[in-house]
């Protein structure tokens, strides 16, 4: 386990990283449209989510079967996207 002071500092470092990513997403919104723009925007949200889950929600310290249930959330989303995408592509 990290030293207490390091854990508190990590919170602020992660917050700064989240705000920087938010700034990048905002800057991107003002750029002219390009092919991968929506994917990059959602990807930035994915990065922010990863930081929150890993550091704030302390997924890195999860033990037992908890990591499996953390993964289940993402599996749900993947299934939803797969079924939704299949509907769109085959319609």
């Amino acid at each position, binding site marked *: 386990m990290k030293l207490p002071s390091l854990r508190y500092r990590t919170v602020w470092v992660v917050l700064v990283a989240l705000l920087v990513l938010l700034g990048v997403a905002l800057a991107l919104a003002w750029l002219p449209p390009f092919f991968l723009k929506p994917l990059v925007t959602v990807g930035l949200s994915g990065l922010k989510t990863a930081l929150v889950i890993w550091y704030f929600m302390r997924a890195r310290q999860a033990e037992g079967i908890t990591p499996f249930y953390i993964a289940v959330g993402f599996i749900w*989303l993947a299934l939803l996207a797969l079924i939704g995408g299949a509907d769109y592509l085959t319609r």
Partner: protein
Amino acid sequence: MSVPKSVSEAFRDEQQELSTAALGMWIFLASEVLFFGSALLAFALMRIYYPVGFAEASTHLGVWWGTANTVILLVSSALVALSEHASEDGRGGLFGRSLLGALGLASVFLGIKGYEYWQKFQHHHVPGEGFAQGDFAEPAAAEMFFMIYFALTGLHAVHVIGGIGWMVALLFVARRAQVRHVSVQTFALYWHFVDIVWIFLFPLLYLIA
């Protein structure tokens, strides 16, 4: 305010209790992912089917209000993470101050959201009979956009209200007695999830134009 390290009778030690509570919360959050995920999928598909109408409707949202709310939720999440560490270390003062700060920010978030809703009512951008169809080139798509906007942000706001109630309860207990760390940990997981939902809602709703 003090934060003791006590264990319920059902558990061998504090670590087992914390792990069990975390597991239960993660299972709940996985069901919440389905809840919000299906609504976000509906939005994504409609966005693909009606790109022009959705992009046009999105320009009627206040992007700076949305940005302010995103910053507010990110900072509140950091404060909740701090309060969790503080409760783990038995630092009652820091725990109370951090949670109070998060509570204040959550209230400001709701205030801004309420102001945005009020603006939408003023401009008749609420789906229904009085919808200002003349403001849009594709009014049907714009109405669909605002329908999903109100559904998603409304559901999210309900979760924020739930989080506020939870924070008030934790602070109330902390003033009168002792808050157990397992309660703080469980709440923190919930609040970070509420933050994550907004992390996706903000770019999808406010920045797509």
